[in-house]
């Protein structure tokens, strides 16, 4: 996936983990049970609108708050290809990498972005939108290795000689 395109949903600054998945639903049995409630405090209809291949663009501090790993998991389960934000909260960032949800930091795209438009991501290089290129960094090596292994579970399975 060196290059991909997707329709964009725009969310704001400080999208916290209680917005992504409220505690009320955290003890449901599976991620699939939970994903219909994704983003419900902010936009109850959004979970039903997001389609496979869509992209979320947001402001600063995306994923702040709790350590709940269901947050990146349900975003991934909704079919979101990647989240592009001005910045990400720390625990959410680790959890996303560990679950193979791609996060991209880009400081300017959010300010220009219009919901419903499409963007194209050229991995480790730039995001293309409206004829403009927004540069993005490449992922550090240690994180790429987890992603390349297919997430932390797979990396550990390899360690335990299972795969």
């Amino acid at each position, binding site marked *: 996936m060196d290059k991909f395109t997707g329709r964009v949903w725009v969310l704001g600054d*400080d999208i*916290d*983990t*209680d*917005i992504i998945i*409220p*505690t*009320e639903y*955290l*003890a*449901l*049995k599976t991620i699939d049970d939970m994903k219909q409630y994704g983003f*419900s*405090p*902010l936009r109850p209809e959004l979970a039903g609108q997001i389609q496979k291949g869509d992209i979320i663009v947001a402001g*600063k*501090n995306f994923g*702040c*708050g*709790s*350590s*709940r*790993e*269901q947050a*990146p998991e349900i975003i991934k389960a909704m079919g979101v290809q990647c989240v592009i934000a001005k*910045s*990400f*909260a*720390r*625990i959410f960032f*680790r*959890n996303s990498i*560990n*679950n193979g949800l791609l996060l991209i930091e880009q400081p300017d795209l959010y300010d220009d972005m219009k919901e419903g438009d499409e963007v194209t991501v050229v991995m480790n290089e730039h995001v293309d939108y409206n004829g403009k290129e927004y540069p993005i960094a490449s992922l*550090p090596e*240690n994180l790429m290795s987890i992603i390349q292994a297919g*997430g*932390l*579970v797979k*990396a*550990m*399975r390899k*360690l*335990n*000689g*299972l795969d």
Partner: protein
Amino acid sequence: MGETIIEKIIRHNTGKAVKPGDIVTVNVDRVMIHDIFIPFVADKFEEMGFTKLHDPDKVVLIYDHLVPASQQDDTRHFRTGDAFAEKYGLTHVHRSDGICHQLMTEAGYVKPGDIAFGTDSHTTTYGCVGAFSSGIGYTEMASILGTGTMWIKVPETIKVVIDGELPENVMSKDIILRLIGDLRADGATYRALEFAGSTIENMTVASRMTMANMAIEAGAKCALFTPDEKTAEYCEIELNDYQKSLVGDPDATYMRTITYKAEDFVPVMACPSQVDKIRNVSELEGTEIDQVFIGSCTNGRLEDLQAAAEVLEGKKVADFVKLIVTPASRKIYKQAADMGILKTLSEAGAIITHPGCGLCCGRTGGILSDGERVVATNNRNFLGRMGTSKVEIYLASPRTAASCAVAGKIVSPE
């Protein structure tokens, strides 16, 4: 070259001097898993192919978010946890003793200089005794259970220096809220906070705990306080040379130093629905409220209940306003009972629940509905955290919260 506290802890753990940005693998001294995530941790652990815990003694399992159970499926988490504990020989299990972050230091699982991780963002709390502790997800927890190690990036440090004497109606909650307001909710992301100054030195471990607990609300990876005599007494240990060395060197490199004068602090609140939306309480006076919540790993300790009791002694909670008090642990509950604090609170009209996460985690303990307003002593006021997205949550100190309960509206603490 001098070192910050976090750099010293990591060097001690890995045997190598480190600088910010280095990626290192640390040996984990203690981990904490709570009831909400244990089923996920258990699944991932087995999916990863592990057959035994790296060291069962290092693992603590705590039921707190779902105690008492409020939904029929909640007790499944207890059963899964009990089965996991039995299968892998885990003996440190707390089933109804209080909030995980309170118990980890109170029950002696985390000591100054340790490295600890927990499946909860407020794991930063243990920095109150000078431990490096941080929240992680359940997949990462499963891998630590199997390997005993975790990779981390050495964070840069922001130093916060506070000198002087706090005004009487100001609590450490007001300080941390002010700091979060100044740093903003992402101002310390990936960074360590390090606290110093005479105000900090004079502060109880419980007050430091409040501040370390909320460091995550500015995005911090951890928040560190230098262990001192009070820490030693609280932890019931004698500090060793390593623990005594955990002070930021004068020539250490800080990415930023922020200085406050204690006398300048005033009671503040975080307004709906961002933790960094800080206003002076005096600017908010008169706003009508429906409920007050005193509790949580942020402010459910003895000194917090005591502050509330001082305000409420001989007074009544305003008509049609609910005051919910949730002590942070069984030990605190018992101490508060023995000292007559619970009696005072109950006489004033408080609803005193069993220790646990209660309302703060939004599953029970006083959930609100559209148009209601709550003043709460916990750590988050996110949209929908305590009910619907039309509930307004104001975060405050226990003293402020108790004063609001009596007035039935936002008022400055006495």
